[in-house]
């Protein structure tokens, strides 16, 4: 019976069906299933399967994104029960994401956010045109171990450096790793501003984030 439900959960993620995922999550709560088990044995199995399909070329980016969103919907539906039971999902790390001040380009950053949260990171997405001070405040507030900074313009890209310098000043650079991204970001730029890494796409960003968290 429970096995059956877990299978349906995995399938809802595979189908990218957020409504079904949330409904199944509620059903699990009503049946008294431990939310952590529902996540790990049900929904995560779906995420892993989509990941495998993607790796061998049978699935494409929109399917990954929709699976990520279904996963998110399921976790949100399970959260009240987890709180009640005093349990917590084990996350890979806390990431603060933002498109830097003066820049309104959102899509790449949001895509990275979806991929990171689907992969088990806790993501705090501050949106676009975010001043360095606000990013730093969030990092301190949530005790983040990763920051992701996006910029599409060479004139706003300089703000990535500003955030890194600020973290440096506060003595947070050892604890907080910084990933930078956006079309104008090159390896030379990453070295110049002493960021910890960059990726040219969202899938690569997940690998990079895992690597940076492991190294810390």
């Amino acid at each position, binding site marked *: 019976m429970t096995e059956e439900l877990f299978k349906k959960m995995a399938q809802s993620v595979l189908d990218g069906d957020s409504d079904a995922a949330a409904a199944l999550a509620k059903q699990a709560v009503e049946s008294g299933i431990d939310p952590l088990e529902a996540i790990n044995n049900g929904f995560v199995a779906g995420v892993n399967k989509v990941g495998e399909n993607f790796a061998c070329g049978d699935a*494409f*980016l929109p399917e990954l994104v929709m699976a990520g969103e279904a996963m998110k919907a399921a976790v949100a539906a399970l959260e009240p029960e987890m709180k009640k039971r005093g349990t917590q999902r084990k996350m890979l790390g806390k990431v603060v994401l933002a498109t830097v001040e003066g820049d*309104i380009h959102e899509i790449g950053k949001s895509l990275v956010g979806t991929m990171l949260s689907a992969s088990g990171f806790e993501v705090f997405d501050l949106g676009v045109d975010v001043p360095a001070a606000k990013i730093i405040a969030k990092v301190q507030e949530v005790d983040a171990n990763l920051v992701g900074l996006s910029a599409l313009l*060479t*004139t706003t890209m300089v703000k990535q450096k500003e955030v890194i310098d600020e973290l440096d000043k506060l003595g947070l650079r050892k604890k907080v790793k910084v990933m930078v991204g956006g079309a*104008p970001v090159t390896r030379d730029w990453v070295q110049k501003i002493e960021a910890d890494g960059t990726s*040219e796409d969202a899938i690569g960003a997940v690998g990079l984030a895992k690597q940076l968290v492991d190294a810390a």
Partner: protein
Amino acid sequence: MSKKIKSITNPKLRLEILTPAEVKKIHDATLWIIEKVGVRFPSKRALEIWAAHGAEVDTGKMVVRAKAELIEKALKSCPPVYPLAARDPQQDLPLDGNHVFVGTDGCGVEVIDIRSGVRRTSCLQDVADISRIADATEEVAFHWVPVSAQDMPPETRGLHEIQTIWKNSTKHVQTESIYNEREAQAAIEMAALIVGGKDKLRKRPVLSLMQCSAPPLGHDGGSLEAALVAAEYGLPTGFMTMAANLTTGPATLAGNLAVGNAEVIAGTALIQLAFPGAPVFYAAAQTASDLRSGAYTGGGPEDFLYGAATNVLADFYNIPLSMGSFATGAKEPNWQAGVDNSLSTFMASVVMSDMLLGIGFLHGSRIWSYAEMMMDCEIFSIIHKMMQGIAVDEESLALDTIAAVGPGGNFLSQKHTLKHMRDLFLPQFMDRRPYSEWETKKDDGRDWALAKARKTLETHQPEPLDSQINAEMAKIITSLEKK
């Protein structure tokens, strides 16, 4: 040095990519989007203009919803024909629907160094070198700011870039790198120095401004304000959509065209509401995002179709088009670059897009390559030749000559041959040598293209910018720099 500019004109080839009924459907869809969904205009000035003309403005979300009548009425004041002026009036470009002009691509962040071949971060000297070569190259009719001058302060970078192009070339400058009101004002002061006063810019716009939209269905506030400043002084201005299937637009081509069209048309209508009759152009470089990574692709059949379809839309609104072509996603000048750039440029040319952008870049407009620049010029020359089609008349049928040679002879020693042989295309960068010669040298078009660029850079002396004008420009820039 020849001041000649090569452009496609009086074409013999034609392509019907969208029927009039299909264009109407896209137009209606566009109006529906603007009225029901809305377009974001994150600028106080822009929102005030919309509100003053009776559009529905959501100030919190900065989204404008405008009725079809308002948009259609505003678009009626767009001038259909106007020139892009050049520092040298001989090189003015008529945007009259009967010319296709090519410009460099813009906003690159890295350059493959012309001497060392090493890839590195772009700087102001690169802008100078590329403009100088473009000045001497007849296929290049106008400039975009080719690469970002990353060694200049961000707050005046766009101004250093245009000054440098004017110092190295007499051709028209279209900048895509000025996206705030302050820099736009300064750029107009600089352009006014060339033509002898701001009031003369309307007649002789030596500068035009291109602004990127923020798809889906949005604009950038600074860009809008820069465009409004340009329009006020009669400088041509255009909004470019880069709506991309999967990410910033629907997965379907028609839907993506409608999203991009809504951005461009709403932006264009704003300019007309503020300054009726201001010269405007349509700009586009739609694409499909990569299915696996979501990344910008810079090529593929969808791009090629957009290249042709967009000019049909611009024609429907009776405004010139600045169309992204070339700009391959290839990492080096290779087969992919050849396929991408030939097909995109052919499709955009065959429908007579007024301005084509994109020569010189690799990796989706990020890495400048001098070899690619020269080979892209050759691609344009090939298409230029093809667009002339086949002339069929007494002279070209050559019956007298055919009779004189008769069965089994050859045409090499005929006067008719001597008269017409130079009509045939002679490539600069195609390998037509004997196999044995290639086997010994193992070089190819890329080497010859690079050699040509190097030689041009070493030898070409552009007509200098008046030293007093140059000094005045520098003063304007310095006054804007942080102390």
